[in-house]
């Protein structure tokens, strides 16, 4: 099994979720995170002084999928999350030894 992890822009979550649903995925786990990258930070004003906040809101999506579709899932996410502007984020794939569905104890492909 593979774990596909994506860091995306917050307002793209719904698009990615819909694209993954359309691609037949049935599960994923989503988390609010903060990202530091080439995008740089944003400049906020606080009582007449300017500050740069260099951790920007991002969303992390993790989904465990069978080996054979991992690349395709990554593509789907990339396509749905792309705005073409800096800060769009990353998708990476890593390997999972084993996965269990808690409710039933099913393993592997059955479990996702």
């Amino acid at each position, binding site marked *: 099994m593979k774990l596909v992890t994506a860091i995306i822009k917050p307002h793209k979550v719904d698009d990615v979720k819909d694209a993954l649903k359309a691609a037949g995925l049935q599960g994923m786990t989503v988390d609010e995170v903060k990202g530091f990258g080439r995008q740089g930070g944003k400049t*906020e004003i606080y009582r007449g002084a300017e500050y740069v906040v260099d951790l920007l809101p991002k969303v992390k999506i993790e989904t465990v999928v069978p080996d054979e579709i991992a690349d395709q899932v990554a593509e789907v996410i990339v396509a749905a999350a792309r705005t073409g502007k800096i800060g769009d984020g990353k998708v990476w794939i890593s390997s999972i030894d084993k996965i269990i569905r808690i409710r039933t104890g099913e393993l592997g492909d059955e479990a996702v």
Partner: protein
Amino acid sequence: MIDSGDTAWMLISTGLVLFMTPGLAFFYGGMVRAKNMLGMLMQNFFAMGLMAILWVTIAFSLAFGNFGDGGFIGNLDFAWMRNINATTGSEAFALTIPFVLFCAYQMTFAVITPALITGATADRFKFKAYVIFIALWLVLVYAPVAHWVFGGGWLAKLGALDFAGGAVVHINAGAAALAVVLVLGKRKGWPREGMHPHNLPFTLLGTGILWFGWFGFNAGSALGANGIAATALMNTFLAASAGMIGWSLFERIKDGKPTTLGAASGAVAGLVAITPCAGFVGGMAPILIGLAAGVLCVFAIQLKFKFGYDDSLDVVGVHLVGGLVGALLLGFFADATINPLVKNEGLFVGGDAKLLWYQFVASAVTLVFSFVVSFIIAKAIDKTIGMRVTEEEENEGLDYSQHAETAYSFGSTGSMDRL
């Protein structure tokens, strides 16, 4: 003659109505998404700044100059605070309070009325455009309508009644809200996405402040600490309660569960509807008016889905419709034994439909006038500097795009470096 008791009540009433605007800011603010929270708060608080200054420089005079002339607009007798002080004016206006206090009290109405519009336009109004809009609106829409009704203008002369601003405040702001959202267009994603309220406790806090402040709004409109103020306070209380129950019951029956937002919305609907009636009705009437408003407004807020205008937080559904409900029901319940200013009693009390007709005329005229002029102002701003933020700014949220700020930073990773 200045009466210290009346003055005491009007001093605090002025404070209470002023406090309603922060209350409104939180009532609305709780319903928007977190990224637009400060945008909402700022629009409301800025009205406390800008409207006040415009009020004493020009708008008060346009509304209350030539008091009782039965006309369309006041004059400039009171512009630039001229003749507004503690010693003059009270007699001419038959007041038992210092004239400057009357001006300050009315100022709080001029602050909150344009602020009401912000609920409809949530999440996409460019701040600069907003500021220009409400400045023009106060002078071109609010001041004349206030003159017609509160300033002894033509609607007052006609015989229409409006105790604390059913037409002047609620129908007026509600109609303007409709006009502005037609110009602004829908929020991105609406109506498919629900746009979760980000902080319902703040909405409830706002409701509490509004309810409290509304005692100043309605009972303060008696302009003294007397029996009519007391009646208005009781009616306000009961209508809010009944509005809450009406809306909640409706939800319980239709959706299976009453929501806190529904209860809060119902209370506000009841408060809106009782506003024109507060010092003119008695007995169980406020309960009926509140119930009616609760149920009718929960229906009315569905209309936006049918007609496709994005009235984000239901200003049309609650203030325009609630204001109409109150203004028209006053035509049924107005009671001369409650208030001698009632010359024509309501249909259910005196058996005569005359008042109902006046109420209809006043409501319709206010609605149309406000809608048309607001639409023109909004269009003009849109053609020149643009009313709406860009799509990118809408994605980012108003807090950052308009004010370079973030509302909340609960975590430990919110640090920032000085440039």
